[in-house]
Every structure is written in structure tokens, then in C-alpha cells.
């Protein structure tokens, strides 16, 4: 102990919060200092335009970044033209706002363009101990680096740009412990789905989640990003993982890594033993099988080896009707029309390698449309240097340029109404991937195996 002053054990989230909390008002709301902001074309242009109309400056233009990812086309040789009606206007508005305020933009064909959360990690925009916001619900992905990251709305974005702060009441804390060592065919995506399936899509009830436990410690940085990415589907305000050696070496390799790096400070970003959490949840990772969703919420998931469960109520009945599935049907017998590999959830290099391992020397089943959209230019370049693009093409996959693509349908590209898609994305909501599209969420390996078999399938035994 430190003399007579008792040290109160503190959670990682509380430490990050304290580093950024300017003040807390009597009404319980805090002003949180924001170190980095990154915005995309779907909302960035509107916020920047609103700021200009207020005759306001971006308070710290050096800390604000723009990226084109949401509605940009993914066909090779693309330009500003989008399949999305009006999409070009969104790109133009962001570009114009970035130029007017002097912000760095990762534009359509920039060498470092990609989905905002991947770009944030690759560039070192997100670093341990920093706070970061982005007008996208999957910003929690960056908690995997020990970044205090929040997804925000457009009005909040405008506020952050004008004031460098976010108005936010401190969320409750929740420790989610993933015990044990998962099977070799089980990925972070499967653990995230199982967690949401077990505790529900609002299981975190707005808390800031810290993921910990043996399975998390064993995960690579990219897998932790997948796990944290899905925290928003768990109802979390955000997620965080204590940065370890591999995180530090990963962020130190980024272009914007500080020199000298505050490594000693970063290594103190851990939860102290005995620190209090408001909520706790545990999962035995060793017992988890590869997962696939059968309904229209990520909580509607089951083992890929299981059957469609009997509906538990009206919501599940409605989901089964939308998905055109009968209870008792073995999931592995469900034929598919399409396979999609992409999104901020599962389009990093490890995801593509995992899928390519399944696809090597094989072909997509007849009648199955298959698409791979790397999450960023860097991922795309690495994959192409390793020859993965050839593996995907030889298997019958289309190989695209980076962007959010078919994770959601903005009026651009869809597999079509009534089509059944196995997808590495994060949301199986009704009509999310296009009107009438039936989405089954799964890991890259399950998606690749399903594409080859023409029905939902487990990856080969390892």
C-alpha cells in the first residue's frame, strides 16, 4: 500500500473515463474530452455543413479525419459514381466539408481508404488511452486497442467538432469473462454470437463492457476487434480490452504511432484486482460450437450443428416467418443463395486468410453468388500479396474494392428479395441487406464452408 492513502481498485474503463472527463454536472452528465474524431460520408457532410452554417470552426482540425466507406461503390475501377441513389452527393459533401475545414480525408481511391474502424486502427488514429468518436455504432470495435471509443449521432458529431467534447452520462460497467480455451474451429465471432444469444441483444443494458478471461487473452488483436465490434449488438455503450504486448507492438507499427511511445503509461491500462463492476457475465468458451443465426436479431443464434429452435414467443415466430424456416430443421440442411465476406466485423486479413483456407482448391456450389469485400486497401494489398485474391476468384468469389458494401442496403447492391445469405456481417435485421433478404450471420470460415456446400455448413474439422 501507498502510505496511509488506500488505493481504490479501479476498472480499466474508469481509468480511461477519468483521463478524459473534463467535468461532471449536477445533472449527472459529463463533458468528455475527445482526442480523435473520424467521420464517414453518410453523416460527415451533414455535420460539417451544419457547422459551417453556424459559422463555427472545427475546434481541432488536426484531430479530425474523414473517410469514404458507407455508400462508395466496391466494383474494381470505381469512381464517385454510386449504385446508391444520391450516394455521389454524400461523397461530394464530405469531400467539400473536409476541404473547407482542412481535414485529412481518406478518399475513394486513397491508398489507405477503408472502413472507418479499420482505417482508425491501421493508421494509429485509435491508440491505447485515447478517446475517439465516430458517427457509427460499431466504433466500439476500437476498444480492442484500449481506446475509449463511442459511436455517436450526427448532432453529437457536430458538437464534438465544435467543442472537442462529448456530452455523456457515465455508463455502468460490466465485466464479461470468456473462460477457457475455445475449440480450434471457434472464432471471436462465434463467441460474440453465443454471448448475445445467451444474454440477449440488450444483455449489456447500455453498460461499458470490459472483455476479459483466458479466451480473450489468447485472441489476436484482430479477433478482439471482432469481439468488441459486436458489443453494440449486445446493447453495450462501448467495449474495451486491456491492451497487452501484442496490442502495443501492433499500434507501434502504425504511421501515427507517437515517438517516443508512452509504453509504460499504456501498460497501466488494466483493471486493478478487486475493482468493482456494476454487472458481470461469464461464458465458458470451451463449450461453444461454431454459431449461425436463424432469425432477425443477433440473439437468434444457435450452434451450426443444431436445429432451428422452437419459437419462444411472438418475436421468434415473426422471425421464423421472415426467414422462412421451420422449427426442428437442421441448420446444416438449409440451402443458401449467396455468401458475403466483408464488413467492419470480419474483413481484416485474418478473416480473409481463414476463409481462404476453407476455399483453397474448392469451388462455390452451383447457383451460389459469392462476394468478398476486403475491409481496407491495406487488407486488400496484403491479401493480394499473399495471393488470397486468386484463391477467392478461383473458388468463384467476386473480389472487390474496400467499403461497407452489402453489410447494409442503401439502395445500391443486394442479392435480391427472398434470397438466403450467409454473411460475416453484424446485423441480420429484417431487410438489412436489402428488401426481403434473409441473413444468417456467421464467422468467415462458416460462410466459406457454406458457400462451398451450397447450404449452411460447419468448417471442416481441424
Amino acid at each position, binding site marked *: 500500500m501507498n502510505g496511509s492513502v488506500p488505493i481504490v481498485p479501479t476498472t480499466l474503463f474508469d481509468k480511461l473515463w477519468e483521463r478524459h472527463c*473534463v*467535468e461532471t454536472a449536477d*445533472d449527472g*452528465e459529463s*463533458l468528455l*474530452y475527445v*482526442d480523435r474524431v473520424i467521420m464517414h460520408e*453518410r*453523416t460527415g*457532410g451533414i455535420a460539417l*455543413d451544419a457547422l459551417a452554417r453556424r459559422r463555427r470552426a472545427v475546434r481541432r482540425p488536426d484531430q479530425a479525419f474523414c473517410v469514404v466507406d458507407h455508400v462508395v461503390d466496391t466494383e474494381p475501377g470505381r469512381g464517385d459514381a454510386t449504385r*446508391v*441513389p*444520391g450516394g455521389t452527393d*454524400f461523397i461530394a459533401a464530405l469531400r467539400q466539408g473536409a476541404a473547407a475545414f482542412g481535414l485529412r480525408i481518406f478518399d475513394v481511391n486513397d491508398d489507405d481508404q477503408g472502413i472507418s474502424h479499420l482505417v482508425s486502427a491501421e493508421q494509429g488514429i485509435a491508440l491505447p488511452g485515447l478517446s475517439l468518436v465516430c*458517427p*457509427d*455504432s460499431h466504433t466500439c470495435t476500437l476498444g480492442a486497442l484500449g481506446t475509449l471509443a463511442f*459511436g*455517436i*449521432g*450526427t*448532432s*453529437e458529431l*457536430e*458538437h464534438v467538432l*465544435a*467543442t*472537442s*467534447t462529448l*456530452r*455523456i*452520462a457515465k*455508463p455502468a460497467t460490466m465485466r464479461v469473462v470468456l473462460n477457457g480455451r475455445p475449440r480450434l474451429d471457434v472464432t471471436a465471432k462465434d463467441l460474440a454470437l453465443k454471448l448475445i444469444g445467451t444474454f440477449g*441483444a*440488450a444483455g449489456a*443494458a*447500455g453498460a461499458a463492457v470490459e472483455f476479459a478471461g483466458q479466451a480473450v487473452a489468447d485472441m489476436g488483436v484482430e479477433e478482439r476487434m471482432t469481439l468488441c465490434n459486436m458489443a*453494440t*449488438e449486445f*446493447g*453495450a*455503450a462501448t467495449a474495451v480490452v486491456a491492451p497487452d504486448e501484442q496490442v502495443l507492438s501492433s499500434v507501434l507499427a502504425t504511421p*501515427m504511432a507517437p515517438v*517516443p*511511445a*508512452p509504453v509504460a503509461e499504456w501498460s497501466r491500462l488494466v483493471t486493478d484486482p478487486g475493482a468493482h463492476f456494476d454487472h458481470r457475465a461469464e461464458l465458458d468458451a470451451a463449450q461453444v460450437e461454431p454459431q449461425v443465426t436463424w432469425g432477425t*436479431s443477433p*440473439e437468434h443464434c444457435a450452434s451450426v450443428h443444431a436445429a432451428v429452435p422452437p419459437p419462444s414467443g411472438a*418475436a421468434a415466430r*415473426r422471425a421464423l416467418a421472415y426467414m422462412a424456416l421451420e422449427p426442428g430443421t437442421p441448420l446444416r440442411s438449409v440451402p443458401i443463395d449467396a455468401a458475403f465476406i466483408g464488413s467492419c466485423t470480419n474483413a481484416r486479413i485474418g478473416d480473409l486468410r481463414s476463409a481462404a483456407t476453407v476455399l483453397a482448391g474448392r469451388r462455390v456450389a452451383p447457383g451460389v453468388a459469392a462476394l468478398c469485400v476486403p475491409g481496407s486497401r491495406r487488407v486488400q494489398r496484403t491479401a493480394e500479396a499473399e495471393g488470397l485474391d486468386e484463391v477467392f476468384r478461383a473458388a468463384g468469389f467476386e473480389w472487390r474494392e474496400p467499403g461497407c458494401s452489402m453489410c*447494409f*442496403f*442503401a*439502395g445500391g447492391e443486394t442479392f435480391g428479395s427472398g434470397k438466403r445469405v450467409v454473411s460475416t456481417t453484424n*446485423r441480420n*435485421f429484417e*431487410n*438489412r441487406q436489402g428488401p*426481403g433478404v434473409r441473413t444468417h450471420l456467421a464467422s468467415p470460415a462458416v460462410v466459406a464452408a457454406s458457400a462451398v456446400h451450397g447450404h449452411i455448413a460447419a468448417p471442416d474439422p481441424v
Partner: protein
Amino acid sequence: MVPLTVHSGVAVPLLRANVDTDAIIPSREVRRVSRTGLGDGLFANWRYVDGQTGRPDPEFVLNRPERAGASILLGGPNFGCGSSREYAVWALAEFGIRVIVAPDFGPIFRKNCVANGLLPAGVPMAAVRELAAWSDRDPQHNRLTVDLVAARIKGAGEPVPFDVSRAARIRLLRGLDDIAMTDCRAAAIDAFEAERFAAEPWVRLP
């Protein structure tokens, strides 16, 4: 922002769980770089016969004549989960919704509501169902009255207390603008930033 103190209006129930922001405003209905022009796209997949703005589905609750002019939406658990798109709140507001009553909300959606003068009122599901049942009997006549000062919703019987953060309540009651509020704290922010940069110089980009 228009302050909200006491609001009476026709209620409309949409009690299913996990109504996500993609359902509230499908991305394809966001066609212009604008906060407006979104009301017609509200719940497009459910509200129109072919899912596209055009022919309304007469069976969908928002299209029922007895719900005309509805301004209070009764929802289920985890209302507004999913995408952070503020277009969802802009679409609800443009349609005329001022209050959403549900057991709980997506965290970003809840904040987006308050930023636009809409009240997210937290009420346990059983009480939401009771309010809906009373409204169902004669929607145009059995209007709900939401009193933000007292944090109560008046239906048939005893007023139902609802949950709303103190900060959100004050913001809505006064119709305050976030940026104007924070501008009053500019000196504190400047001081905090100067300290942060001094203590952790690496945070500041060259």
C-alpha cells in the same frame, strides 16, 4: 429546439422487441444530404405494401385511420437498437412523433432523441401494454398525456412514472442547444486540454 413540458396525443403501439433503426428508416430511404425529407420513409418496409414509399399497407398500425395524428409511439424492449443513424429520429420527428415510450432503448438512439427534442420515456413492458390496451379501445379519444415536469404518463388509471435521465429531462424541458450549453464551459475545456497535452504530450498530433 422546441421545449417539451406536457404533451397530449394519440398513441400508436408497435410493441415488438428490438425495433432497430434500419426498420425505423431503411438506409435506401436516405437519399439526400439532409435532415429533412425522411418522414415518408419512416418504417417503409412495414408501412407500404411493397416496402417502397408508395402504396400504404392499410393494416399497418401507423396507417390506421384511428391512429391519425399519432405523436406518442409505444414500443417494446431495446427500441432503436442497431445503427447510429440519426435519420431514424429525424424521420420520427418529421412524421410527428414527440414521445417514445418503451422499456429500454438503444444507447445511441436514446441520445439522438434528446438531441432532437424527442422524449425517450422508459416504462416497464407491463405498463406499456396497459397504456396500449387503453389507447386501443378508442385511440382518438383515449389520448395519453405525458408530463415531463412530473415524469408521469396519464392514461386510464394512476399516472405511470417513467424513467428519463435528469440531464435529458432538463434539456428537453428547456429546449436547450447542446453546443450553446457547452460553449459556456469553453474555459474549462481549454484548461483541461492544456493540462492533458502537458501531462501526455503524445496525445497532441504534430
